[in-house]
């Protein structure tokens, strides 16, 4: 299992979270404060099986929908020692 941790601006976070929910991924959104300008942003936590990582990132990328060369919208893939729904 992996934990996807993504830090996005508020608006993008809403679109990305909605898209993930529509595909039945479990998403937790934490409103956070980031960077330089202390703008509101959001941290999304998505727990996925190893085999779902690519698909989940694809869903996120399509919903994010920013074009351009600059790398924005980081998604960190973190290993999970144990994950279960109780």
């Amino acid at each position, binding site marked *: 299992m992996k934990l996807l941790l993504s830090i996005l601006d508020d608006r993008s976070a809403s679109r990305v979270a909605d898209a993930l929910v529509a595909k039945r991924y479990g998403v937790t959104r934490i409103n956070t404060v980031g960077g330089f300008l202390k703008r509101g942003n959001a941290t999304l936590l998505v727990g996925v099986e190893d085999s779902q990582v690519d698909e989940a990132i694809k869903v996120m990328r399509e919903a994010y929908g920013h074009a351009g060369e600059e*790398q924005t*919208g980081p998604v960190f893939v973190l*290993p999970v020692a144990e994950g279960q729904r109780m």
Partner: protein
Amino acid sequence: MNRPDPTRLAIAIVQIDDVHDLTHLLIERGFGVTRIDAAGGFLRRENAVVLVATDEAGLTRFHAIVRQTCRTRIATWVPAIDDGTVGLYADPVDVEVGGAVLFVLPIERVEYLSGVPNEAVAVDPGRSLG
């Protein structure tokens, strides 16, 4: 401009009194910082969770900045007695607060939702937490 991919996610839990100095110094030194306000610990004080994605070299600098800005101090805690006893009071207790709790998690892979795709980060299987 593309930066090298981070390999470590540092999660620091710090006192709310320290978070301002910490995040400012981190940003000044070029770290990307995400802050989550939270509550916890023995005194249920407000605290903050600071997320920083970095690499091994950055981690050393990150440690130094945390040590510099998040100091340990002593707070006085007066235990509440609410069992109806009149005239009974509890002695105040000195409690150490501040400092920081730090977790460092390995980042297996980094993707960006926009921009030129990265080559997949090589993951050393021996380092996986499995």
